[in-house]
C-alpha cells in the first residue's frame, strides 16, 4: 500500500513520517508537495508535524489553503484514511475536517517529552490494531496542543465516540497532572464522524523503533496497514460501526 506524506512549506516531520512508512513499515510512500493537485493514487494520507508557514498567525491556519488540501478533502469524503500528526492535526482542525480548535498550552511553554495516552476506541483505521484501553507511551512536541471545542460540539464528539486518545497516567488513569497541555477532556486524539480522518498531537512516528526508546507508536501506523489489507482489521472500522464495549466515561464537562 502507498502513503502520501504531504509537505507544506515549514513541515518538518515529513521525512520522519516517510521513514516510518517505508523503512519501518516496509510500505511505499510519496512526498507530495502542497502545491500538487494529485495524491498520486495513495491509499492513506499523512499530514505531518512541523510548522507549516511558520505557524505564523495560528497553527495550521494558512496550510488549509494549499491546493493539495482540496484533494485531501475529496479523499477523506470518500472514506479514505487520513491522519494528521501534531501540526497535521492542527491543519485538519483549521480545514474543518475535524471539529474544534487548538489553544496555547496551559503554562504557555512548548513541551517535548514522552507522555502516556489511552486508546479509547479501536474502530478507526489508525487504532484498529490496538486494544481498547491500551496505554501507549509516545512523545509529544508542541506549543499549541491545548484542544478546545465549544460544549455542544464536545458533547457531540463524546457521544459519537470520536475521542480516540486521551492523556493518562502510565497505568491508564485520567489525572490532571498527566495532561501536558490542558486539553479539554484530556483529548490527545480525535476522529471524524466517518471515523476515517484522525488527528493526534503525540508523534507515533517518533516511537517506532527500539533505538528511539519506544515502539508504542507502531500500533497506530500498523493499524492502517491492517485496515487496508485484503482481510482488514478484526471488527473493521466500518462507518458508524458498533463499539466493542461501552464508551469510556467522559471527564470534565
Amino acid at each position: 500500500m502507498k502513503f502520501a506524506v504531504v509537505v507544506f512549506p515549514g513541515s518538518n516531520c515529513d521525512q520522519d513520517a516517510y521513514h516510518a512508512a517505508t523503512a519501518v513499515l516496509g510500505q511505499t510512500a510519496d512526498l507530495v508537495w502542497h502545491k500538487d493537485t494529485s495524491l498520486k493514487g495513495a491509499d492513506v494520507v499523512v499530514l505531518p508535524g512541523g510548522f507549516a508557514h511558520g505557524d505564523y498567525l495560528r497553527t495550521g491556519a494558512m496550510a488549509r489553503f494549499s491546493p493539495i488540501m482540496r484533494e485531501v478533502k475529496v479523499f477523506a469524503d470518500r472514506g479514505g484514511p487520513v491522519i494528521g500528526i501534531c501540526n497535521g492535526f492542527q491543519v485538519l482542525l483549521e480545514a474543518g475536517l475535524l471539529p474544534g480548535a487548538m489553544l496555547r498550552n496551559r503554562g504557555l511553554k512548548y513541551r517535548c517529552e514522552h507522555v502516556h495516552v489511552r486508546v479509547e476506541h479501536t474502530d478507526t483505521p489508525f487504532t484498529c490494531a490496538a486494544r481498547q484501553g491500551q496505554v501507549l507511551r509516545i512523545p509529544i512536541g508542541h506549543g499549541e496542543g491545548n484542544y478546545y471545542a465549544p460544549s455542544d460540539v464536545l458533547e457531540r464528539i463524546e457521544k459519537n465516540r470520536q475521542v480516540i486518545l486521551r492523556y493518562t497516567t502510565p497505568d491508564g488513569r485520567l489525572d490532571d497532572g498527566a495532561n501536558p497541555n490542558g486539553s479539554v477532556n484530556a483529548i490527545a486524539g480525535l476522529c471524524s464522524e466517518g471515523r476515517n480522518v484522525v488527528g493526534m498531537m503525540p508523534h507515533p512516528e517518533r516511537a517506532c523503533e527500539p533505538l528511539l526508546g519506544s515502539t508504542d507508536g507502531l500500533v497506530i501506523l500498523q493499524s492502517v496497514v491492517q485496515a487496508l489489507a485484503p482481510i482488514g482489521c478484526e471488527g473493521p472500522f466500518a462507518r458508524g460501526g458498533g463499539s466493542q464495549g461501552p464508551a469510556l466515561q467522559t471527564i470534565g464537562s
Partner: protein
Amino acid sequence: MIDQQTLERHGLKPDEYDRIVGFLGREPNITELGIFSVMWSEHCSYKSSRVHLKTLPTDGPQVLQGPGENAGAIAIGEGLAAVFKIESHNHPSFIEPYQGAATGVGGIIRDIFTMGARPIALLNSLRFGSLDEPAMRRLLEGVVAGIAGYGNSIGIPTVGGEIVFEPSYSGNPLVNVFCLGIAKATDIIKGVASGVGNGVYYVGAKTGRDGIHGATMASAEFDEKSAEKRPAVQVGDPFMEKLLLEACLEVMKTDALVGLQDMGAAGLTCSTTEMGSRGGAGVEIDVSLVPQRESGMTPYEIMLSESQERMLLVAKQGREAEIERVFEKWDLHAVRIGQVTSDGLLRVKDKGAVVAEIPNRALTDEAPVYRRPMETPKYLAEAQALDLASLAPASPQLTARDTLVALLGSPTIASKQWAYRQYDHMVQTNTISLPGMGSGVLRIKGTERALAMSVDGNGRYCYLDPRRGASLAVAEAARNVACAGARPLGATNCLNFGNPERPAIMWQFAKAVEGIGEACRALGVPITGGNVSLYNETDGRAIYPTPVIGVVGILEHADRVLERRFKVSGDVIILFGEGRGELGGSEYLKLAHGLVRGVPPALDLGRERALQDLLVGLGADGLVRSAHDCSDGGLAVTVAECAFGTGGMGAEISIEGVEVARDPRTNEAAALFGESASRVVVSVQSDRVTEVLQRASALRVPARVIGETGGNRLRMAVAGKVVVDVSVDEAERAWSTAIETRFAKKVA
C-alpha cells in the same frame, strides 16, 4: 572628509585609518569606511586572536575541512562527513534575549547548510548570573524560549548543552550555539566566488536597516551608551530559514553552483569579500538590485545591514535558470546582483555608479593583526592560594548528606529539564540518547553508526588557571563523548573573553589557547573551526575567561550507546580514575565556603586518553551497562545522578578517605565532592567485573569496585564510615525541581 569622531564611531584607530589610506591610495568615502570598519572589527578580522589561534592543531586523517570555511568537517565513515561549528551570540542576547538567542541559532544553522550538509543537531552552552536575580530569570527564560522558538520551528533537534550560573556573567551572559550537519564527503560546498563573469545571486529575506554595526558592537565593551544602539535588534524568521535550508540543499544537488555563503555578521560586505578572496577573484555588485524592505536605504546601510536569513551564491554561467527554478519552487526569488570579476576588487555600485572600490585582500588577508601585550593578572596569585589545612570548617549544620542534597539542588548542577523540555529534541527521529542522559547521541540513518556530541567549559577553572582550565574543558567534552561509547574525532571551540586590549585578558586568552591546543593534540581531536567573542565586559568588569569546547565522536554500533543511568539492581559500580580530594575551584568550595579559590584539578592527558580508549572499547564490546563522568560536584554527585530517572534505584558505595585538610569533615567532603579529573563511574553486570578490571589495567587506567546498585537509598561511606544516607526520592526531588522552584518563587 573623515573626521576623528566618525572614525571613533566606526571603532577604527588612527593608525588603522592610515593603513586604509595606504591601501586605497586615497581617502576612503563613508561607504568604504563602513566596509573597512566591519571587516577590520575584532569579530570579523580576529585581529587580536589570530596569532594565537594559528597554534591550534587542525590536522588529522579524519579532517576534511579545517578552520577557514563556514564550518569544519570530519570524515565519519561510509563516505559521510560531519560538518559542525559553534558560535556565540552573547551581546545580542543580552540586549534582547529571545531574538538574540533565536538569531544566534539561525546563524549557526546557516553556517552548516551552507556547506552542503543537512543540519541534524543543535547544542547550546549558556552562562548567566545567579538565578536568584529576577533579571537573570527573565534572561534565561527569554534565551531558552528563543532557542526553542527557532530550533523547533526549523525542525532541528536540540539534543544537549549546559547551563551554568555564576555571578561573573551577571552583566554579560553567554549564549553559545553549536550545530552539526551531515553531508556526503564529496558533496561539501565551499564559500568561494570564482569564474569570471559568473553571476552573483542574492536570495532570502529582504534587506532592512537591522543590525547595522552588529559586528562592531560585538567588538566593543558594553557601557551606558550601548542602550542607544538598541534599535539594532534583528528579528529571526525561522520559517524563511527553513525555506532557505530546503531550497539551498536542493540547489546543491543541481551542480549548477560555484559557491555559497550566508550573510552573517557584516552581511553583504563580509560575504562578498570573503567569497571573492577565497576564490582569488573580485566581486562586483550593484546595491540598487538588492531586495530592500525599507525605502531610502543608502549603499552604506545596504552593505552593512545584518538582516537575517539571507544567502549569497555564485552560479555557473548558463545554469542560472536551474537555480532560479528551485528557489521559485520554495517561493524564494534568487536575484542577480552582480558578477565575479578578475581584478580582485570588491566593487560596489549604486545604479551603475561606483560607490566603493576596495582590494579584497585589504579587507581579509591584509587586515590588521595584533600581537597584543600580555601580563599575568594581578588577582591570580591570591586566587590560587588555597590553604586547605587552615580552612575553617564549614558550618557544623552542613553534614555531608545535606551538602550532597544542596549541591544537587544548586542550579548549575541541577537537572536542566526545565530548559530542554522546551526544545524539540526528537524531531528527525535520530536522537537515541535524550538530553539529560549525557552526550547528545544521534543515529545516522542508513548506517549502523551514531554520532555523539557534547559542549563543555568551566569558567571558574579558567579564571584560576586558564591553561589548565581550557585543557580540562577539552578533556571533559571528549570524556562525555567517550562515556556514550563514542570515539572522539574532532572539536570546535568558542572563546569567550573580556577586552583583549587589556594585557591581563590577553594573557588569559593566550594561555587558554595553549591549553586547548595541548589537550586536543593529546586526545586526538583536532580543532576544525570555532568562534572568538571578545569584549565580554560590562563597565570594565570582565567575565571569567570561558572557552567552550564542542567535541564530536563516532559510535560504530548505534545500539551499543551508553548513558548515565544505572540499569539493573545488583550491578557492580566501578570507578575509573583516582580521586585526590582536589577542591580548588570546586562547586563544593563555592557552596559550603563561598570561595572561588585554588588551582583546578590536575590533568594527566596521557591517562585521560587511556581512559577514553578504555570506555570506547568497553562500550563497543557491551561490557558496561552505564557510564557517567565525574565533573561538577565530584564523585558523590555523579553517583547520585546515575540513580536519577531510574524509578528510584539506589546505590551503596564505599570510597577511601583523603588527607588534604586538618578538619576531618573537610577531608570527607574532599573525598566525596573533590573534582579530580579523568574519572568515570560505570555499572557492570557482576560476572563481567573481572574482565572490565583487566581491560582497565591493560590500559593502565586505575579502576576499583566501589559499590553496588540497588535499594532505594544513596549510601556513601568514606574510609569505612557511612556519611551520606539519603533516599533517592529526596535527592532526586532536590535535583529535578531546583530550577522550576526558583521560577515558581519568582515575581515575573
